[in-house]
């Protein structure tokens, strides 16, 4: 396999790596090396994305609040979060009496591992897709539903009433909003006819699903945005760690690197839901095409898919940050009412409408 590298299609590149490794050592070690490479890459990616999401949040927050934001460490405070990370790593890890040490230590790992696992199924660009499962959307849903376990464990094992209450609130909220997230995604899967993310992206070659599915797709997108924001425990749905009420929610008792894990995982979760939204609603790495306008489509194709993907995800993340710093926090009863009395029924009806539209062929597309 010759070495090929293209910014538009990574298939050849990954295949070259595979062939090279298999040529160099036995299949066992080849697969193992591949795993190591992917793992290291993802760790690095994870760290960078996490850190810079924190930075972005600070900047957005400052912008919305008419401030400057971090501006001392590096240009425009670019290395601020790295400095923060170093500080966190060097902080003393407080051990808590009467806590269940094992679970207390395990909880941040569960949270971070689940977010890490979810990342495995996201298509970043053509050919840059760790595992192309045929149940991709479902897999991401399944993995992210496990993250709540870590939160609950953290809350309980801290032996603190703030943590416990925060964990309970957080768990109830995540479990509830997971349903709407799932329903919104199912709506789009009905349109796509598949759960496989690569297929879903490929099907948006003509037109992104949010346009193709018009009315129900837009509804699903709005629901998804609300529910995903809530599922990631971000404002205005951040009751679980409502600083004014519960100290810091389930991670009140954590410090140092373990706190950093929770912190990082929260931003990674935001990244994951944003990239899933970008993939399912906005075509993932697929450039913006309009059926019939060949020249326009061709121009769009020149922009690399990775950039499309990053742009769309960044747009969604921006939207979520915008929410957080614009809307006031909800009460817990308002939160649950919103989910069970509005979002869930609407999404159920929305699925039916979408199914009907698909059945009648009334979606936009050629």
């Amino acid at each position: 396999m010759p070495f090929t590298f293209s910014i538009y299609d990574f298939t050849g590149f990954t295949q070259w790596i595979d062939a090279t490794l298999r040529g160099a050592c036995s299949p066992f070690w080849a697969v193992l090396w591949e795993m190591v490479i992917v793992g290291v890459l993802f760790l690095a990616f994870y760290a960078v994305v996490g850190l810079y999401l924190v930075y972005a949040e600070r900047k957005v927050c400052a912008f919305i609040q008419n401030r400057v934001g971090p501006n001392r460490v590096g240009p425009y405070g670019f290395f601020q979060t790295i400095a923060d990370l170093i500080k966190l790593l060097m902080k003393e890890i407080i051990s808590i009496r009467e806590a269940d040490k094992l679970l207390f230590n395990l909880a941040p790992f569960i949270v971070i591992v689940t977010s890490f696992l979810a990342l495995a199924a996201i298509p970043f660009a053509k050919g840059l897709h760790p595992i192309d499962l045929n149940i991709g959307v479902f897999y991401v849903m399944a993995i992210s539903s496990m993250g709540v376990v870590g939160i609950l464990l953290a809350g309980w094992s801290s032996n603190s009433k703030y943590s416990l209450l925060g964990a309970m609130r957080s768990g109830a909220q995540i479990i509830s909003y997971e349903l709407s997230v799932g329903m919104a995604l199912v709506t789009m899967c009905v349109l796509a006819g598949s759960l496989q993310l690569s297929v879903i992206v490929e099907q948006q070659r003509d037109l992104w699903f949010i346009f193709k599915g018009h009315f129900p797709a837009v509804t699903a997108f709005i629901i998804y945005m609300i529910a995903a924001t809530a599922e990631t425990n971000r404002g205005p749905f951040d009751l679980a760690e409502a600083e004014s009420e519960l100290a810091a929610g389930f991670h009140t008792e954590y410090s140092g690197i373990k706190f950093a894990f929770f912190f990082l995982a929260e931003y990674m979760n935001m990244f994951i839901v944003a990239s899933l939204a970008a993939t399912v609603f906005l075509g993932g790495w697929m450039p913006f095409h309009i059926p019939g306008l060949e020249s326009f489509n061709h121009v769009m194709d020149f922009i690399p898919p990775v950039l499309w993907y990053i742009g769309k995800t960044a747009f969604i993340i921006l939207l979520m940050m915008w929410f957080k710093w614009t809307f006031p926090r909800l009460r817990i009863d308002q939160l649950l009412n919103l989910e069970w009395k509005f979002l869930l029924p609407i999404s159920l009806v929305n699925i039916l409408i979408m199914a009907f539209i698909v059945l009648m062929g009334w979606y936009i597309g050629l």
Partner: protein
Amino acid sequence: MEITVNHLMFGLFAAMIMVFSILTVTTRRILRAATFLLLVLVATAGLYFMLNYQFMAGVQLTLYAGGIVVLIIFSILLTSHISQKFEPVGWKKAYFSALASIAGAILCITTILQHKFQATTEAAKEIDMKLIGNSMLSTDRDGYALPFEVISVLLLAAMIGAIVVAKRKKLKE
């Protein structure tokens, strides 16, 4: 026999299952038991992935790991305190139960190892979501429409039943 990554993965999952399932039933802290159960279930999902039943693995993760275990942990949070530890099981009970379990396990394992399984020579079926969905709502010979509907009724009944049972009655003081 050449060792492949498959063996490595299988060994990892099998070890997880065996160790954590035994820990689940022997640990004296209830939330640890739940956590170990979660790990067992995740490892089981891994086995399903290895068997190429990706949908089943997803269901396992969503329903078991993400649903039932979360439910169990929630109920633990509501009913137990962190300082609670189980009484050690009486040696008599532990001894006899272990004897029965180990004897049963040995019996089953010897039987499994001695038995010669006969596989069909038919070509394997590619399982994708379309096939599963169609089978689920099909009334043909390989259709599962009836159990599907029955399960839906069961789930409805369970949902209503759980709500009714757990509903807080007005306490008459």
